[in-house]
């Protein structure tokens, strides 16, 4: 059993080697070509392999649809048909009337309330809730903690402009502070929500929307988790950005994961 498997692996390796050789030849040939011909035509594969950017546009479009349609949810406006009587719990033996209907405030929709759309692209200028002293301490701490990791993990020459693990931790720590979650939510293991955030240079949130998930419209718990994540983002604005990292951090997908909530 395991012998077979090993054999397969070996044969794979061989074909990989061959492939590598082939690629190497092709690579060198390509380089030569570029030098000779310049590279305009070769930009084509570059476009193909940049689907991330395309996706961003889709995401924000879709999620804007969500937000604008949100107030149309069925619970927008209700009006009870009947006057709900006060709870009248005294069961003093009445002459048993034929089933007195209990006051049912059956809510029925009344004047369709014009939903106030939720375009949040105004940068809400807010004083940060946390003292900057604490923050700078935390920055240093986080830097210290993650320095060794980063140097091992990323050797690229562009390190200063890419978002490092410590940068991400630094951002995450700030949003975490603003995020409150109800630990009793049902099915807490299934309530990870993603929020798309665009930042200004000063760290204020310029745009926030919810990465589309159909559950937003069908699952109250999911909707509430999503709203709480969005509130966290907005309450936190502006956040502190690691210096020189704005370009790398201006476009974020925040993945709020409540599973390991401290109970």
């Amino acid at each position, binding site marked *: 059993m395991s012998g077979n498997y090993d054999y397969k692996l070996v044969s794979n390796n061989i074909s990989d080697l061959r492939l590598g050789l082939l*690629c190497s030849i*092709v*690579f060198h040939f*390509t380089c030569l070509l570029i030098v000779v011909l310049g590279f305009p035509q070769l930009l084509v*594969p*570059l476009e*193909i*392999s940049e689907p*991330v950017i395309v996706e961003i546009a889709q995401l924000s479009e879709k999620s804007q649809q969500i*937000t604008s349609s949100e*107030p149309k949810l069925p*619970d927008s*406006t209700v*009006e*009870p048909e009947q*006057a*709900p*009587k*006060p*709870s009248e*719990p005294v*069961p003093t*033996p*009445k002459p048993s009337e034929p089933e007195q209907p209990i*006051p049912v*405030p059956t*809510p029925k929709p009344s004047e369709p*309330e014009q*939903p*106030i759309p*939720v375009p*949040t692209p105004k940068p809400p200028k*807010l004083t940060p809730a946390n003292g900057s002293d604490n923050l700078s301490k935390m920055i240093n701490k986080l830097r210290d903690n993650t320095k060794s990791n980063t140097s091992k993990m990323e050797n690229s020459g562009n390190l200063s*402009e890419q978002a490092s693990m410590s940068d991400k931790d630094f951002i995450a720590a700030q*949003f*975490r502070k603003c*995020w*409150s*979650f*109800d*630990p*009793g*939510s*049902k*099915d807490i293991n299934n309530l990870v929500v993603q929020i798309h955030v665009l930042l200004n240079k000063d760290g204020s949130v310029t745009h926030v929307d919810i990465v589309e998930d159909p559950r937003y419209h069908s699952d109250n718990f*999911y909707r*509430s988790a999503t*709203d709480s994540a969005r509130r966290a983002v*907005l*309450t936190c604005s502006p956040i502190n950005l690691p210096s020189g990292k704005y370009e*790398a951090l201006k*476009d*974020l*997908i*925040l*993945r*709020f*994961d409540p*599973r390991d909530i*401290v109970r």
Partner: protein
Amino acid sequence: MKFIFFKNLCFVAISGMFVMPVYAQVQIDINKPNIHPMPIAITRFINTTNQGNQTCKNVPDVISADLERSGLFKPIDSKAFIQTIESLQNQPNFPDWKVINAQALVNGQISSTQDGQIRVEFNLWDVFAENQMLKQSYTTTTNGCRRIAHIIADAIYTRITGETGYFDTQIIYVSETGSQLKRIKRLALMDQDGENHNFLTQPQELVLTPRFSPTAREVTYLSFFRNNPQVYLLHLNSGRRELLGNFPGMTFAPRFSPDGNKMTMSLAKNGNTNIYEMDLKTRNITRLTDNKWINTGPSYAPDGKKIVFESDRSGSQQLYVMNIDGSEQTRISFGSGRYATPVWSPRGDLIAFTKHKDREFFIGVMRSDGSGERLLAKGYLVEGPSWAPNGRVLAFCRQTKSPSSQSKLFSVDLTGFNEKQIITPLDGSDPAWSPLIP
């Protein structure tokens, strides 16, 4: 496949050599959220009724008290409000509310309708997202104000937490007074916040373990009427009560099925206690357990397909689950100590119980397969948990040591936080939470 690989390789090579770094979206994981009650601003409601300012004046206070009691909200003192209530009627000035860190805002209006009723309207705003989360209105008579307030509190709670509310509910319990040697116990019914308290039975009749039907209009309980402990059914609308069944021994520990058509209870006879089910229409009786042990405390799963109960067949009280026909009786509790009074959560995911271990009692929950046990409350004697209809909060009874023994009702959140006494005029035990009032 090879082609793709080739393409990728080319891309890596090229981008590495000639192209500036491309900033894609950065994904950041955020975990370990805080558990803070949400700051919420609940303003006075504008009153335009022709019946005076006092009409339904308490509505915001009742909403506020409900939400605060849940432990998930922290109402902000109205002294901190900046925007006036009057200008708020047009449109919230969100910065005014952000400054005082109100994450949600509630305002409303109380007006008269043409037919002399009162109309209560409210809005719920998400302050930081600057949008309206909810707008509803209700009409009522003057004495319906409290109830409307509970209904509004439920709506707010539901919109923000995702849970169904539980404020428009009642609690039935056993009111206790007098010497421990001859305790006077009466059924009493009150709103979930302790208001509208009423006694349902006479002092001379010993009663225990009331439970609501799914419509909240019937109650089943154990009465020692004429020194013959039997299960009774009380119709709250008419006040009529009836003896359930004609059993040859003591019946007790009754509970309704989720559809209200059946009832399960225990019968103790010849030293054995077994579980029976009664069809409330036909009054036919089915025996579900059949052994020489104590099998009691049956409670239906919310889908009505299973029953959890306690049995000492292993030598000590433990929890078991069986099918509705009594088949496949499976033990689910294996922790150390005794387990008793199981109650299936209306949400279906958990079973609450009383645990007795090392001279202490606990209220706890476990998943319906017995895993994930968590203890939420403990004491010299705590027992008899009952779920709020949303499966989020538990009511239970806490008795302190003699001689100054007191018995009081408490509620605790499913997370173990926010334990609070439920205030009753006298001592209390055996609380049972009603479903949402229909």
